[in-house]
């Protein structure tokens, strides 16, 4: 599936196994591979570079200390690290008693003036990231109400109750949108 093609998954697992044996060069290689997408996720959720960097530091220190507990039966390395990142970011959001400042209007958000230079320099890398482009394409082609519900849940960590209130829709409708959207996403990513 996309970012985690079988070959890449094997190499990721090998890196995690080496990190579990305290191999700093494997850790450095994994950082180079994943820090971009994970930092981008933290930035999208927190909207603050200093906070996003602190969260990313926590995540990679967790990877270093918990590599031995990684279970390939449960998830790919990529999904595992996304899960760790979301957890750390959500903890920070809760600790500060606020929600993300980022309004998830579209997956093609324009960069703000403050971070334009960073985004611009990263744009080349983004273009090279064929998989990210494909996933974005798949997500953008979901029915808009399903995509919106998934993005509110994923990036803003709104509960299904909060999403229902925000969108003015019944709870059952919101649950169904999230379910249908994720099932479709799974199916389409599997077919990439």
């Amino acid at each position: 599936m996309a970012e985690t093609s079988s070959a890449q998954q094997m190499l990721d697992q090998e890196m995690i196994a080496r990190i579990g044996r305290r191999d700093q060069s494997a850790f450095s290689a994994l950082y180079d591979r994943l820090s971009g997408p994970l930092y981008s996720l933290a930035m999208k959720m927190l909207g603050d570079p200093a906070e996003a960097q602190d969260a990313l530091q926590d995540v990679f220190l967790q990877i270093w200390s918990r590599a031995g507990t990684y279970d390939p039966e449960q998830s790919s390395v990529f999904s595992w690290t996304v899960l760790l990142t979301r957890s750390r970011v959500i903890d920070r959001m809760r600790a500060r008693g606020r929600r993300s400042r980022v309004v998830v209007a579209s997956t093609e958000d324009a960069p703000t003036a403050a971070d334009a230079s960073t985004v611009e320099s990263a744009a080349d890398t983004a273009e090279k990231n064929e998989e990210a482009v494909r996933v974005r394409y798949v997500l953008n082609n979901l029915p808009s109400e399903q995509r919106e519900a998934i993005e509110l849940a994923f990036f803003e960590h709104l509960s299904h109750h909060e999403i229902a209130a925000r969108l003015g829709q019944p709870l059952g409708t919101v649950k169904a949108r999230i379910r249908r959207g994720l099932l479709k996403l799974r199916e389409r990513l599997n077919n990439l």
Partner: protein
Amino acid sequence: MISEEQQDQAALYALRLLGADEDAAFESELRANAELCDLVRELREAAGHVALTAPLQLPPASLKQRIMREIAVETERIVPMPTQRAAFSWVPWAIAAALAVFCGLLAFDRVRLERQLADIRTTDPLMQTTFFALAPSAPAPADAKATVAWQPGRQSGVIRISNLPAPQPGKDYQLWAVDAEHKDPISAGIVRVDKNGVAQVRFKPVEKAEHVKAFAISLEREGGVPKKEGPILLVGTT
């Protein structure tokens, strides 16, 4: 059969949207339902990919330095340094000086040996062999291991496995070459272990693999599959 309600719960669980009580209740349901477990895993993978839709931004280089420093400090903490000093504090310096002289001699000798090695490499096929050590990855037993001797020129190799119990009926172990030029791992055939969990097999990947980065063994359907499906049990680079 998974009900629509279970699918709803699975999707919310994959996105971490359930409350603590709902989480616990759903997890006990998961323990009793393998099909539901598979669905959750797949939905979690799909949800993980949503992260890739965030506009790509790169952290500053200083962050990596900060993190690497942190783990280096932690590693040093684990290895306690000897604390005795005083009267023999000159000893490390003497050892360092002796080592420096010794290193100089070694460097001189190395140049000579490298020349000899280059000559041997062109004539001895064993020197054209790359070795891969494969380490276990859950759910393989912790003492399972394998070594691959790979000859890129001949596009063939030998794998020796030990401590890997025979798979359950209807399953086989399959060897894969992970090549930089191929998106998916290349099948290198089925590997059957004996009753002692040992195998020694000569293999040849089904496609040309000129830039092999790693070898891996996965658990697959009996007879093997064209594209890896099952969990990885052993994996290793050079």
